[in-house]
């Protein structure tokens, strides 16, 4: 058996961070709790599959359909909670098929979804291409593909996938998919009208999750158009569905932050310390309210620990958040710009454009500002907040 030595690249790269993580562990003093009813861990409220404790492991490990069904539950829960453990569980359930070159389409689709969440975009796309090649009628694959291409700023491919999806699914879903692409590619107004009409005609026919997604999209579009009260209405009606969705909480949190409503952010996200995307928004709001509060200090420390742990693992999924954290919580624009640029290499959503511009301006890096200006011209992205920042920068010059 050949064992990897410590001189692997991984160990080298992770060295400083490992030290950091380990020093945290060394400083801690283990204890014996005094009372048997002392609570050690709160479990996530939603219930996933627990194949191992329910004695179903054997079936799952043999039957791809059962495994896929279990993985799907974990992935859905992951979307609601933004808890990375759910992804790890989903991948573990797919264990037997995970490393195959071409697993069954059903499994491959789920692998694509997990890979996307881990920011392995090219791996995810390769899987999706294989699935759509094998099953051109697979709506799920086209939808995931469309969102993935949109995220990477690959408009023609994104639009093509949305078009292929349309005949395979209901009106609201296809409208939402088309609007998701068009709204960041020069047709914000039209996309909004299309989706709004589909939403009006839907009258509750579509699944809650699709309606919630559409409402969130409408909220984000109105926000980019500068119609804040309309955006507020969309976000509020999405929230009133009482269908927990961490992405919605993040999007609404960002809207409130941009609108300068920090205390509303705190009441929205007070208990959301588990998902760091949400914890970040909470910490940013607390920074605005009172940069010296004890609560903020604790949250800041938590975030720093989690970023460090992620880097030690070699994860590259946090750059956007790290950039915002460095810029707004630590006021380190140069660091923030570095993360924003790394992030920009991976993804190109409106939020990525915004943080790149903010960090570029704060660091006085005019080539980054020009890069953003060029991107707006090429992509046709409309966003009043970004445009306002750009003109203020031009005025400053």
């Amino acid at each position, binding site marked *: 058996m050949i064992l990897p030595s410590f*001189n692997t690249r991984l160990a080298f790269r992770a060295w400083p961070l490992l030290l950091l993580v380990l020093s945290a562990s060394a400083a*801690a003093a283990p204890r014996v*709790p005094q009372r048997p*009813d002392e609570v050690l861990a709160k479990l996530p409220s939603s219930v996933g599959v627990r194949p191992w404790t329910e004695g179903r492991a054997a079936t799952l490990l043999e039957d791809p359909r059962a495994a896929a069904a279990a993985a799907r539950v974990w992935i859905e829960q992951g979307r609601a*909670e933004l808890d990375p453990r759910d992804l790890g569980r989903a991948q573990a359930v797919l264990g037997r098929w995970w490393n195959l070159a071409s697993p069954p389409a059903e499994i491959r689709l789920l692998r694509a979804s997990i890979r996307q969440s881990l920011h392995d975009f090219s791996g995810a796309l390769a899987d999706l291409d294989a699935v759509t090649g094998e099953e051109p009628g697979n709506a799920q694959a086209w939808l995931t593909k469309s969102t993935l291409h949109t995220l990477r700023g690959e408009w023609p491919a994104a639009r093509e996938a949305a078009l292929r999806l349309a005949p395979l699914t209901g009106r609201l879903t296809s409208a939402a998919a088309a609007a998701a692409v068009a709204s960041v590619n020069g047709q914000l107004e039209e996309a909004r009208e299309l989706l709004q009409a589909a939403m009006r005609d839907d009258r509750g026919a579509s699944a809650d*999750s*699709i309606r919630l997604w559409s409402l969130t999209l409408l909220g984000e579009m109105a926000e980019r158009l500068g119609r804040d009260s309309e955006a507020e209405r969309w976000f509020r009606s999405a929230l009133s569905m009482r269908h927990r969705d961490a992405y919605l909480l993040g999007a609404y949190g960002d809207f409130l932050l941009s609108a300068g409503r920090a205390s509303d952010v705190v009441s929205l996200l007070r208990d959301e310390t588990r998902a*760091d995307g949400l914890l970040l928004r909470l910490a940013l709001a607390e920074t605005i309210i009172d940069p010296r509060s004890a609560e903020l200090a604790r949250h800041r420390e938590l975030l720093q620990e*989690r970023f460090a742990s992620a880097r030690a693992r070699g994860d590259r999924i946090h750059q956007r958040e790290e950039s915002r954290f460095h810029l707004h919580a630590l006021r380190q624009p140069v660091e923030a710009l570095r993360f924003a640029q790394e992030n920009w290499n991976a993804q190109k959503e409106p939020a990525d454009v915004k943080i790149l511009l903010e960090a570029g301006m704060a660091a006085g890096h005019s080539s980054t500002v020009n890069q953003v200006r060029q991107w707006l011209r090429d992509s046709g992205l409309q966003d009043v907040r970004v445009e306002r920042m750009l003109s203020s920068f031009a005025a400053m010059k």
Partner: protein
Amino acid sequence: MTVPAPSRCRFRWALIAACLLALISPTAARAHQASDGYVSLVATNQELTARVDLAVRDLDAVFGLDDNVDGSVTWGELTAHQAEIAQYVRTNVTVKVNDRLIDLTPLELLVDEHGDASFAVWRFKQPLTEKVRTMEIRYRCVFEVDALHRAFLKLEGEGEVRTGMLSPSEDSCRASFGAGAPRPHGLHTFIREGIWHIWTGYDHVLFLLALLLPAVVARVEGEWRAVNRLRPALWSVLKTVTAFTAAHSLTLSLAALGWVRMSPRIVEPVIAASVVLAAINNLRPFFLEKGWMVAFVFGLIHGFGFAGALQEMDLAGGSLAWPLLGFNLGVECGQAVIVLAFVPCAFLLRRSRFYQIGALRFGSIGITLVATRWLALRLLGG
């Protein structure tokens, strides 16, 4: 307006749609309470102390600890499962010291916090009869329920600390301790890095080639003439290569050991300049037979360049002797391959117009141009 009656078809769409959305993953970052575990092994002369920290949430995923199903795990619930968890840890963590299997029977169960999560902590202790030379660990905890689980590892022995990370695909690790302990894996790595560095560090290769090009010719009446016999050619190559090797080994060692320091702002442009000079010498000779001296003087500077590459590999925590030796050996091997490939070809072709005009003249012009561009870029900080 009437609401259309839900057809079967529509119902099916709704179902599909529900599944669809779940799979578009939000790109906002995941929570970073990712599943981490911590393992530390500390060997002293007398004993091995070990500690394994596993998140209570992960143990719940494996064993189902929430016996009263109230959505939280208490200390009482954890201790109720103590025996089976201890057995699990014993099966899934194997440790060898000096290639002998160590029995890890948990001594005590404690609780600790990392970040804002509680961890169950096991401590172990085993007497050791001899000094630790190697430690080896294999770890498979939690991987079966969470493929993204990672264990952060700290191994300590003879005053040296090693860290690492274990994952489902790399679940074991071996480390050596004590001065002079053989580190075959490390040595391989550094030899490979050394070879790689000289082959991909075109400035070193071009410098060497520029010096070797005139080895098979001699300057007679203002022009290059092919030498007749192999011996003077080999002698010239040997002098040049030895001088270059001795010089760069010297400064590589001095710089790697931290005794002499030179800023890359100086080293890098001077390396580029050395290539320019060596190439121009082939066109308008000014140092002729003194090529080996030039090789020595600039070899000193190239050595600093090698040291920079070695330092980038981050040698924190380990002894420097092995990496230094390995890296230097690698550089020499890489260099020997170039020389052995070049010299026979050059000797065979030395009388041809291809060699005298193509290789010697135009080759040197080419090298001059490339190296001048490097020089400019390095001076301007590009």
